[in-house]
C-alpha cells in the first residue's frame, strides 16, 4: 500500500472509513414524497424510447407485481393494468440526490453523491459523536426511513468495497472491519459478482462469459493477463476496491479550515435573530483565526432549517481578514438572501479559505502604526470588498501597463490592492491613445483618395463623417510569437463636427484592405 497515507504516517487507524448508502428505489420514492398515495399502488416512471414508452424505475410494490426497468409500458400495463405512471426526470433525481448528500453532512463533512442512486460518506473520525459506527449507521438508516427512503448500507475502508457490499452484499448492513487490509476486503468481496466492481455492463458480461463471474475468481488471475484481454478497467477497479490503488472521493463542499457553529433550542427566523447569531459566531471565528495566526479569504455561512433544507451565503475578501467589523459589514448585506422558511435550528460559519496573517503593530489607540496611507488602504480594501461581494470581484480592476504594441493588449489587470504594487513604468505619454476603445473594432467604410493614403471620409452606422484632418499613419504590428495577424495603420482623424476618431486600415493579404474604427478621442 505504497499510496496509503496511513502507512507513511505510521498510524494504525485507517484514514478513511466509507459508508455507502444505496437507494434502490430512489426515483420513485423521491416522487413518492410528493405523491404519498402513489406508493401504495404499483408506480413506475417512464421515458420515451424509440416509438414507445420504456419503464425507467419502479416502486417496490410494482417490482413485487412483476414490473421492472427496461420493460415497455404496454407490457407493464398488460401485467398490472392499474399501474400509476409518471415521466422520468433524471435531472431532478440528480439534484435531489445532491440535496440529500448535503443533508447527510450532519454525519460527516465529507459526503458526495455517487452515480444516480448512491451517496458515499467518509465517517472516519466522526463515529465518536454518534456512539460508534453501528449507532451512526442505525441513525442514518432511521433518518432515511423517516424520509420514506429504503436504503441498503455498507461500511468498508474503501469506497469500492462499500459500494459493492451495499449493492450486492448478502447482509444489510454489510461490514468489512476497519483495518482489514486488501486480503480482508478480498475475502469479504470474493463471492460477489464482478458487476459489483462498478464495471460497465458489457465488460462484466464479457468477463462472466469467460467464467470470471465472481470477484474472487477475478482476483486470482494475473493482472497482466486481465489487462491484455479486457483492458485496464477491471484491474483498476479491483485494485481500487481492495485499497491497492488510489480512489479519492471529492467532498461536495471544500472542507472548512475553521468553523464556529451555534445550535438553537427554538428555531429562529427573524433577520434580527440571525444577525445576532452571526455576530456571536464572528466573535468565535475571529478569535480562532487570531489564535492560529490566520486570516479568512472566503467565509461560508450555512443555515440549517428545521425542514432539513438549508440556506447559505458566501462572502469573499480581497485580503486575509480577521477583524470582526468589516466581516460583519460584508455579511450584513447578504443576510436578506437567507430564507429562514419555518425556522433555522443551526448556523455554521466556516472559513473555507484562509491565509497566514501576521500580527500588526498598533499604537495605544488600536490604530495601525505607520504612515497615514496604511489606514487608508484598510478603508479602501473594505470598500472594495463590499463592491466585490455585490458586483463581482472580476469587475474591479486597476488598469496596469502591459508591454504590447497591440492597443487591446496594452492594458493588464494590476493588483487591485496596491499595498505592494511595484512601480511599473507607465504607458509612454507621447503616444496618442483614445479615451474609449471599442472592442471589437467596428468595421467601417472609408474613402481614400490614394490606395495607401489617409482617409478622406468614412461611413459609420449609416452616417457619413467628412474628415478635416487625419494624422498618421502609425503602424502597429503584432508580436512575432503570436499568430500572424495583419499589420495596422492607425490614423487620428477629426471630422467636421469636431469628433475625433482612431481609425485603422488592416492590410489584407491579397485582398483589399479593410477599415476599422477602434477608438474615440475626447
Amino acid at each position, binding site marked *: 500500500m505504497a499510496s496509503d497515507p496511513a502507512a507513511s504516517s505510521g498510524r494504525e487507524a485507517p484514514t478513511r472509513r466509507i459508508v455507502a448508502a444505496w437507494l434502490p428505489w430512489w426515483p420513485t420514492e423521491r416522487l413518492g414524497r410528493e405523491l404519498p398515495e402513489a406508493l401504495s399502488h404499483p408506480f413506475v416512471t417512464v421515458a420515451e424510447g424509440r416509438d414507445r414508452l420504456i419503464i425507467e424505475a419502479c416502486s417496490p410494490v410494482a417490482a413485487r407485481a412483476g414490473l421492472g426497468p427496461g420493460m415497455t409500458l404496454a407490457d407493464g400495463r398488460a401485467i398490472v393494468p392499474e399501474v400509476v405512471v409518471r415521466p422520468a426526470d433524471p435531472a431532478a433525481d440528480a439534484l435531489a440526490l445532491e440535496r440529500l448528500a448535503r443533508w447527510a453532512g450532519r454525519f460527516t463533512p465529507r459526503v458526495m453523491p455517487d452515480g444516480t442512486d448512491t451517496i458515499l460518506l467518509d465517517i472516519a473520525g466522526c463515529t465518536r459523536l454518534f456512539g460508534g459506527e453501528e449507532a451512526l449507521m442505525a441513525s442514518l438508516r432511521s433518518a432515511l426511513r423517516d424520509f420514506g427512503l429504503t436504503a441498503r448500507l455498507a461500511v468498508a475502508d474503501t469506497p469500492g468495497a462499500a459500494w459493492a457490499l451495499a449493492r450486492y452484499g448478502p447482509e444489510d448492513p454489510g461490514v468489512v472491519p476497519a483495518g482489514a487490509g486488501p486480503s480482508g476486503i478480498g475475502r469479504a468481496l470474493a463471492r460477489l459478482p464482478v458487476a459489483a466492481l462498478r464495471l460497465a455492463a458489457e465488460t462484466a458480461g464479457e468477463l462472466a462469459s469467460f467464467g470470471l463471474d465472481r470477484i474472487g475468481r477475478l482476483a486470482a488471475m494475473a493482472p497482466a493477463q486481465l489487462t491484455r484481454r479486457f483492458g485496464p478497467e477491471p484491474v483498476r477497479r479491483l485494485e481500487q476496491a481492495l485499497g491497492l490503488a488510489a480512489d479519492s472521493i471529492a467532498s461536495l463542499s471544500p472542507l472548512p479550515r475553521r468553523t464556529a457553529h451555534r445550535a438553537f433550542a427554538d428555531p429562529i427566523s427573524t433577520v434580527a435573530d440571525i444577525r445576532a447569531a452571526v455576530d456571536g459566531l464572528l466573535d468565535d471565528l475571529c478569535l480562532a483565526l487570531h489564535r492560529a495566526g490566520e486570516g479568512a479569504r472566503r467565509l461560508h455561512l450555512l443555515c440549517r432549517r428545521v425542514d432539513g433544507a438549508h440556506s447559505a451565503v458566501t462572502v469573499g475578501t480581497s485580503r486575509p481578514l480577521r477583524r470582526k467589523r468589516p466581516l460583519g459589514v460584508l455579511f450584513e448585506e447578504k443576510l436578506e438572501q437567507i430564507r429562514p422558511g419555518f425556522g433555522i435550528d443551526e448556523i455554521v460559519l466556516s472559513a473555507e479559505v484562509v491565509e497566514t496573517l501576521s500580527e500588526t503593530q498598533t499604537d495605544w489607540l488600536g490604530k495601525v502604526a505607520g*504612515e497615514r*496611507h496604511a489606514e*487608508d*488602504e484598510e*478603508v*479602501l480594501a*473594505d*470598500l*472594495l470588498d463590499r*463592491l466585490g461581494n*455585490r*458586483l463581482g470581484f472580476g*469587475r*474591479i*480592476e*486597476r*488598469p*496596469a*501597463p502591459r508591454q504590447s504594441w497591440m*492597443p487591446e493588449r*496594452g*492594458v493588464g489587470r*494590476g493588483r*487591485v490592492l*496596491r499595498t505592494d*504594487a511595484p*512601480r*511599473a513604468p*507607465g*504607458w509612454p*505619454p507621447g*503616444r*496618442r*491613445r*483614445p*479615451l*474609449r*476603445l471599442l*472592442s471589437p473594432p467596428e468595421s467601417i467604410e472609408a474613402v481614400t483618395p490614394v490606395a495607401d*493614403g*489617409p482617409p*478622406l471620409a468614412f461611413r459609420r452606422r449609416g452616417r457619413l463623417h*467628412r*474628415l*478635416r*484632418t*487625419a*494624422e498618421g499613419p502609425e503602424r502597429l504590428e503584432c508580436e512575432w510569437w503570436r499568430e500572424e495577424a495583419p499589420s495596422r495603420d492607425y490614423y*487620428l*482623424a*477629426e471630422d*467636421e*463636427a*469636431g*469628433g*475625433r476618431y482612431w481609425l485603422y486600415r488592416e492590410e489584407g493579404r491579397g485582398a483589399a484592405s479593410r477599415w476599422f474604427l477602434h*477608438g*474615440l*478621442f*475626447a
Partner: protein
Amino acid sequence: MSTVPQTRSRPQPRRAPEAVHTWRADGTRQRRRTVAESLRRTIRGVEEGGSSPGPHLAVGAAEIDRALPGGGLRLGCVHEVVGDEAATGFCAVLLARCLRGTQDNRSGPALLWLSRGSDLYAPGLVRYGVGAGRLLVVSGLKRDEDVHWAMEEALRCPAVGAVVAETGRVGLAASRRLMLAAEGKEVLGLALSRGSCVGRRHGAGVRSAFSRWRVTAVQAGNRARQPRSPWEVCPRAPSGRTGRREEAAPPHRSADSSARWLVQLLHCRGGRPAEWLARWTGDDWRLSE
C-alpha cells in the same frame, strides 16, 4: 494662463455669533459691519445649498474658477457632466486635479471610475494626468441600482478622493442619497451622463446635482464660434461658411495637438451659467474667446 495657486482650500470655521457685540469705542459701526458680513455669509450659504462652505477643487483655468462660487468645484457633493468623449476627458482632467500635491504612486486618495461598459481605455487617460496605478475601474455595471449603490458606497469611503460614475437618469431620491453620502467629505463626485439619456436642453440627469456641465467637442480650427449669451446654451453646428473654407484646405495636414471643447456651465448653485471654449494642452488649460 495662470492657475489658482492652492488646489484645496481648507474649510473656513464659521465665526461665532457672539463676535457681533464688541466693547470698542466705535462699537456701533463695528457691529454694523459684522452684522452685514454675517448676513452676506448666510445668503451665500443659502445660495450654495444651505450648508457651510466646504473645501473646493480648482478646475485650473482662472476664468472658469472665477465663475464658480468658492473658486472651484465644491468637494463633498455631486456634480453632473453631460456629454460624450469630451465630457469623459473633462472628468479625467478633474480626477487628475485631485491628485495634485501627492508625490508618488503610493500615497494619495484613490480614484474610482464606475463604468457601464468596458470601453474606458486607461492609456488614453495618461494625457489628462491620470497615470497608471492610480485609478480603480469597476466595469460592466448594467443596472442603474448597481451604479447608484456603488457610487454611494464609494462617496462614503474616506480613502476615495474622487468618483466618476456613468449614471443615466438619477431620480430625486437617489440623487439626494448621493449628496448626503458625499456631504462633509473631501470627495469629488462626478456623475457622467453619456449619450442621449439626458434631456437635450438642460440635461437634468442628476436631479439635485450641485453643478451641471456640458462638454462637447468643437472643430479645432473653427474660430468663428463665439460664446453667446449665457442663457442661450444650446450648442450649434459650426457655420457652413467656415467649414467650406477649411475643406478647401488640403485635408491631410496633421491634426491639432489637442481638441477644443465647448465647456458649458449649465447650472450651478450660487453661480451663473457661462460657457468657454477651452483646450487641454496636456498639462494646462488654454481658453480662447
